[in-house]
């Protein structure tokens, strides 16, 4: 036990030194070489290219452009995998519901007060990550996961009955999850439906004007690039992720009394 204590201390100290180095040196300079591979050059050329909109995503953030525009279908199925996992969890826990009055006090007043200060900050940080996902590092999943952490923090500190009383019951969270996923599907076929109704041609997961198609998602919001569908994808994804992860965490947080019907199946002696 002595040895492990020493190792813990040494590792903590090293981590502190490293983090302080990181603070001092800021960006720390480039670690990769200055010459780019052809694939990277191509992506960087077409991520934000107002002179060649036919191949461009018109978003300054290369990762979001790749994830939601160049490789949009992959990301859709990735989102569906998480959705199927949540559906499996809901199927396992079917019949369970948040009961009132088991132990609804939550944690102490000190923890509650600090959570009241911290949780809104995490929510705002997550929202900014999600809504600026097409401008700066971040995106729908990142922002949604940040906000889900804040929701789980509230659920643990104030008890899950508090969330239930505020209107976030299990079915509401599942509805939020489904609305987010449905919004992704609607955005991905929006231009296709528009082209079918108005004539002309368009593609699934189309963002800007493409070859043979003159339809386009809005690319500017006042004086900021909007990235067309990327903003709406990030928004819907963050809604889907916050609903799904919070639902999963609350299902796992359910107490014995609430799960007795699910575990036992029948009346117990």
């Amino acid at each position, binding site marked *: 036990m002595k040895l492990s204590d020493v190792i813990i201390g040494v590792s903590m100290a*090293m981590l502190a030194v490293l983090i302080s180095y990181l603070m001092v040196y800021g960006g720390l*300079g480039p*670690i990769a070489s200055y010459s780019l591979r052809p694939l990277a050059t191509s992506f960087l050329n077409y991520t934000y290219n107002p002179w060649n909109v036919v191949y461009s995503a018109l978003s300054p953030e290369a990762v979001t452009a790749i994830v939601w525009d160049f490789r949009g279908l992959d990301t859709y199925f990735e989102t569906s995998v998480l959705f199927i996992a949540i559906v499996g969890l809901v199927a396992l826990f079917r019949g369970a519901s948040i009961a009132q009055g088991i132990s609804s006090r939550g944690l102490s007043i000190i923890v509650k007060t600090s959570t009241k200060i911290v949780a809104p900050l995490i929510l705002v940080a997550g929202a900014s990550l999600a809504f600026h996902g097409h401008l700066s590092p971040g995106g729908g999943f990142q922002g949604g996961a940040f906000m889900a952490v804040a929701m789980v923090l509230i659920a643990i500190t104030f008890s899950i009955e508090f969330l239930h009383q505020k209107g976030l019951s299990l079915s509401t969270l599942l509805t939020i999850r489904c609305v987010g996923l449905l919004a992704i599907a609607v955005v991905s076929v929006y231009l296709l439906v528009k082209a079918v109704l108005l004539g002309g041609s368009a593609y699934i997961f189309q963002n800007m004007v493409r070859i043979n198609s003159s339809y386009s998602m809005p690319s500017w919001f006042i004086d900021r690039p909007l990235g067309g569908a990327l903003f709406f994808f990030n928004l819907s994804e963050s809604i889907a992720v916050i609903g799904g992860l919070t639902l999963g965490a609350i299902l796992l947080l359910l107490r014995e009394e609430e799960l007795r019907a699910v575990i036992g199946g029948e009346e117990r002696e």
Partner: protein
Amino acid sequence: MPMNELLPAIMAFVTALVSIVATWLAVQEKDLLVAVLFSALQSTCYALIYYLLMAPDIVLVYLPVSVGILPLITVILVKKTERYEE
């Protein structure tokens, strides 16, 4: 090679060493709650390495999942079963 190019590589190396120590402690630890904390320390080291390798998107998705969601699920699991390993 100039120092300002070599420094991030050295830091990533040292951080990786720290993460190895944290992983070893997490495996060794009999108190599972403490093991979860060591696992979170290892995840923090990995997040720092991702930042040094200039992948801020991965850092932002790794932080809430590995420091928030994963310890949460593990702690719930420990709470519903046993805290001390045999």
